């Protein structure tokens, strides 16, 4: 009987806390949302399963959690090495900011900048939407977060998961789990969050505006763009060198036409492997004792607000631009400036087609969408460099 009692003490049932149970339910909810509603399944399934795995109570003395890092200790004049858990080695790629630049490499290798090159004024909408980052930054300071924590929380408004993880790993590693979950959850909820804001801030007449089809872009333009844009962006904001370097390197692999194999690997196998490792380890880092805090609730609130503000920023700036343009922009396109590629562009297409089924805005929306990726990486670089 004693053996059974001893065994019972080692089981997850005996040491399961209410918080662990809640986090397991949240993990299962993520998996369900991904499967049933098709909300960002490539991210929510690994994160959800990671949350389930990370919240199984750990047997004392066993190195199993993502936080059981390897260590060197000086004991009796001798250096002793204690290995970390397997999950901690995978999480190393998150905590040291290795995975986000690799994801940017893959994104670069799959991104076609043609629509942005054909209509450069739409780039400005990607800049306008970054207002979400900086207003959320101020909101977080108001709620009592330190400047560094506020910087990491603010970047949720960039609607770019890898950028949010990268910056929070640098500025506020203790908030990484909550920020990553908030960023990816809201990215998955773009089709729910954005449409009401889009309808509220535009008239039917504006939503019906048709835009000229994009012009053909030459191969030379596509080849020159990644190098030139990288130089411009990083000479202005050197803090963005890692993310933008990888993004534009990936794009150069695609557009140079001589490294098709490398581009193909970057946009398929490599990005998939990194996404699996990143999603799963971020999920596993959401242990109840580190995740279920009032701070996390505030981060979720600020995250939702930042998405709304960023969407409104892009929309309102498109309306402002229309005051001076002879060829009007459909203001819905401004909502795609929040980056979340390509979901927000798809939402623009969906909302536009609800008014006019023959209006195709997807191509136009991709321009501010990819500009938003560049803009959020620059914003992250700025915050990282001024908040060292």
């Amino acid at each position, binding site marked *: 009987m004693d053996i059974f009692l001893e065994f019972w003490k080692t089981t997850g049932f005996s040491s399961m806390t209410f918080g662990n149970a809640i986090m397991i339910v949240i993990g299962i909810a993520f998996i369900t949302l991904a499967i049933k509603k098709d909300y960002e399944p490539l991210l929510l399934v690994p994160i959800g399963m990671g949350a389930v795995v990370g919240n199984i109570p750990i047997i004392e003395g066993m190195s199993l959690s993502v936080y059981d890092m390897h260590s060197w200790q000086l004991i009796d004049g001798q250096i002793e090495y204690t290995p970390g858990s397997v999950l901690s080695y995978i999480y190393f790629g998150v905590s040291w900011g290795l995975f986000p630049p690799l994801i940017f490499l893959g994104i670069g290798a799959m991104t076609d900048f043609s629509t*942005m*090159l054909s209509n*450069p*004024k739409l*780039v*400005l909408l*990607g*800049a*306008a939407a*970054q*207002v979400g*980052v*900086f*207003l959320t*930054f*101020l909101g977080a*300071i*108001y709620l*009592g977060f*330190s*400047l560094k924590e*506020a*910087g990491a929380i603010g970047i949720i408004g960039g609607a770019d998961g890898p950028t949010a993880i990268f910056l929070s790993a640098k500025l506020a590693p203790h908030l990484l789990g909550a920020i990553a979950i908030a960023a990816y959850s809201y990215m998955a909820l773009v089709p729910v969050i954005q449409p009401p804001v889009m309808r509220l801030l535009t008239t039917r007449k504006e939503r019906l505006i048709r835009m000229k089809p994009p012009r053909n872009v*030459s*191969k*030379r*333009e596509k080849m*020159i*763009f990644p190098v*030139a*844009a990288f130089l*411009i*962006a990083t000479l*202005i*904001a050197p803090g963005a060198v890692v993310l933008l370097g990888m993004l534009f390197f990936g794009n150069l692999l695609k557009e*140079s*036409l*001589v*490294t*098709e*194999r490398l581009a193909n690997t970057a946009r398929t196998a490599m990005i998939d492997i990194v996404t699996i490792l990143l999603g799963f380890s971020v999920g596993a880092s959401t242990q109840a004792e580190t995740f279920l805090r009032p701070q996390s609730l505030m981060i979720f609130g600020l995250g939702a607000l930042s998405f709304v503000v960023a969407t409104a920023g892009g929309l309102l700036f498109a309306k402002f631009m229309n005051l001076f343009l002879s060829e009007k922009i459909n203001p819905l396109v401004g909502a795609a400036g929040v980056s979340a590629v390509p979901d927000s562009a798809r939402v623009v297409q969906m909302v536009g087609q609800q008014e006019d089924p023959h209006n195709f805005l997807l191509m136009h929306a991709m321009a501010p969408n990819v*500009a938003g990726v*560049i*803009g959020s990486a*620059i*914003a992250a670089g*700025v*915050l990282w460099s*001024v*908040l060292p």
Partner: protein
Amino acid sequence: MVDPFVFLMTDSAHRGLSIAVAGMLIVAVALTVISLFIAALPKLLGYAAKVWPESESHRAAASHHERLDPHDEVLYAAIGYALYLKHQKH
């Protein structure tokens, strides 16, 4: 919850505001310069094309063949066979 007026008097609010304004300006300037560069690029390339006419490089052409996967080869074989049959009929 801090009173908004009291909050605006704090050092962190001052620092935060200046970072937010500067950050927004830097993002806007960077993307505006990129936008201007993109707008000028076709003209710049137009001038450059007069000096160096655009042609597909040897490597780029070669890479097109590298990109053919077995399915492409099957497709080309099928097209070739169809053309051959067509010529046979004539």
